[in-house]
C-alpha cells in the first residue's frame, strides 16, 4: 500500500515536471519526484519489528541503515540540483524577464 502511495507521488512529480510551464513549479515537481524515490529507499530499509540501527545490548533486529546513508547522499545531490536550477531560473528571469517557459521568446 505504501509503495502504491509512493509511486503515486512519483507520477505526480513526473507529471508536474512535464506539464507545468512555470519553471519554479517545475523545480518543485522535480523535488517531489526525487523525494518519492527517497521515500522508496526508506521503505525498503524497513525491517519488520526493527528499531533504529543504533547498537544496544537488548535489541537484535535493526532496520537496514544502508539505504538511509545512500539517501543522504542522494538528498545532497538533490539539493545541489535544486540550487543550481534556482540559480539558473534567476538568470533566466534576468535575461528574458519571465519564468514561464512558454512565454520565453527565443526568436
Amino acid at each position: 500500500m505504501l509503495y502504491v502511495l509512493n509511486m503515486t507521488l512519483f507520477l505526480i512529480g513526473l507529471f508536474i515536471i512535464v506539464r507545468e510551464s512555470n519553471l519554479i513549479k517545475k523545480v518543485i515537481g522535480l523535488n517531489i519526484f526525487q523525494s518519492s524515490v527517497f521515500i522508496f529507499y526508506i521503505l525498503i530499509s524497513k525491517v519488520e519489528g526493527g528499531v533504529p540501527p543504533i547498537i544496544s545490548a537488548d535489541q537484535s533486529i535493526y532496520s537496514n541503515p544502508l539505504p538511509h546513508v545512500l539517501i543522504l547522499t542522494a538528498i545532497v545531490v538533490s539539493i545541489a540540483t535544486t540550487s543550481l536550477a534556482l540559480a539558473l531560473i534567476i538568470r533566466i528571469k534576468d535575461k528574458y524577464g519571465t519564468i514561464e517557459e512558454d512565454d520565453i521568446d527565443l526568436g
Partner: protein
Amino acid sequence: MNQIPILIITLPLLLTPILLLIRKINIVYALTLIVSFINISLILALGAEVYNNGSIIYELGGWPAPIGIRLNADLLSCYFLTFINVISFLCLVSSKDIIKHQIHEDNIYLFYIAWLLCNIGFSGIVLTDDIFNLFVFLEISSLSSYFLISQANYKGTLLAAMQYLFIGSIGAVFILLAIGILYAHTGTLNMHDLAMKIGQAKFSESIVFALGLLLAGVGIKSALFPLHGWLIKTYAYAPSIVTTYFAGTSTKIGVYILLRVFLDILNSINPLEYYGLAQFILFISLLGVFLSTLYAVKQKEVKKMLAYSSVAQLGYIIIAIMLLIPDGLTASLIHVVNHSIIKTGLFLIIAVIFINNQNVIIEDLSGLGKKYPILMSCFFILGLGLIGLPITSGFISKWYIITAMLKSEYWYFTFIVLLTSFMTLSYVWVLIEKIYFATNDNDDAINNISIYQMFCIITLTVMTIYLGLETSLTSGIAENISNDFYGVTGK
C-alpha cells in the same frame, strides 16, 4: 601501481579546492593542464598494467566488498578512460582562447573547476564497482555539465541548460529508483556481488520495471533515439568548447553505463534477450538513425547538423550492441572511440573558427578553404572519417558494424546502415562544397588560431588516420573486451 585507480579520481579532485583558492586564470589553466596530463599518463600506465595482468580492484579505505566501496579497473574501463581523458585534455588545451570570449573573466576558474568535476564524474562512472556510486558520479558529472552549458551567453543557452537539467535529473532519478529496486531484490550494491546474486533472486515484475527505468535513464544519457531532444539543444547552445568536449564524451558515458549494466551486471538474467528488449531497441535505433540522418541533411545550422549526426552515429553504436553477438560489441566499442575523435575534431574546428558565433549556418563556411588551408584539410579528412571512407578510422568502424550486422540475424537491415552512410556523404559534402567552392562576400578577419589549438586539431586528425590504418589499439582491445563479455557466459 595499485594506487593508480584512485589517483585518477582524486588528483583532479585535490586540484579543485586549490583552484578555488587560487583563481588566477593563467595558473588555473596551467595547473589544470598539468593534472590532466598526469592523469593521462597514469591512465596509460594503468591500461598497460590491466592489459597485461588483468583487472585491478581497489578497495577504498581498505574495506573489502561488499561492505566497502571498490573501484574496478578492467579493460573496458581503461578503454573508455583513455579516450575520454585524452579528449578532455585536448579540449582543455584549446579552451583558453575560446572561453576568454565567452565567459566573464572572474568566472573562468569556476569554469575549469566544473570541467574538472565533470571529468572526475566521467572517470568515476567508468571506474567504480558500486552501482550506487555510479549514480553519485553520474550526478557529479551532470551537475557540473549543467553549469558548463549555462556559461555561454547565447540566446537560448539558459533555457537549453534548464531543459537539460530537468531531463537529466529525470533520467538520474529513474536510474536511482532502478538501483533501489535492484537493491531490494539482492541486498547488495557491489557490481560483482550484484551480478552473482541477481541470478539467484526471485524473478518478479518489479525487476522488469527496474529494467525499464534503467533503460529510460540510460537512454536519456546516451541520447537514444526518441530521447535525443536535449542533445540537439545543448550542442547548439552550449559554449562551443563545451560542445566539443561533450560531443566526444558525455553520450559515450551513457553507452558505457548501458554496457556495464545490461551486459555485465545483469548478464545472468539476460535482460536484453529475455524481455525482447534488444529487438525493440534495435528497431527504435534503426528508425532513429534514419530519421536523424534525414534531419541532419535538412539542417541549415552546422552545429545542429553535427548534433543530429551524433545522434545517428550513437544509433549505430546502440544497434551494434543490440545485435547481441561479440562482433557487434566489438564494432560498437571501436565506433565509440572513432566517432568521438572525429566528432570532437569537427566541433573543435567549428569552435576555433567561430568563437563568438552560436548560429553557424552553412553559408558561413563559404570560402574558408582559402582562409584556413590547414584547418580545412583537417576538416575534410575528419569529414571523410564521418562518412567512413578508407584510410580513416570511420572506415574501420563501418567495416566492423557491417560485418557484425551481416553475421547477425538482422542482416537485411544492413541496407539502412548503408543508405544512411550515403546520406551522411550528402550532408558532409554540402559543407565541403561550401568550404572549397563558395566565395564569401563578407571579409571577416582571420582569427588567430593559436599553435595549441592547431596542435590539438592536427592531433585528432592524425589519430583519425592512424586508427584507420593501425587498428590494434582499437579493434584489438575491443575484441578482447567483447570476448571477455561473451566468453564468460559461454554464448
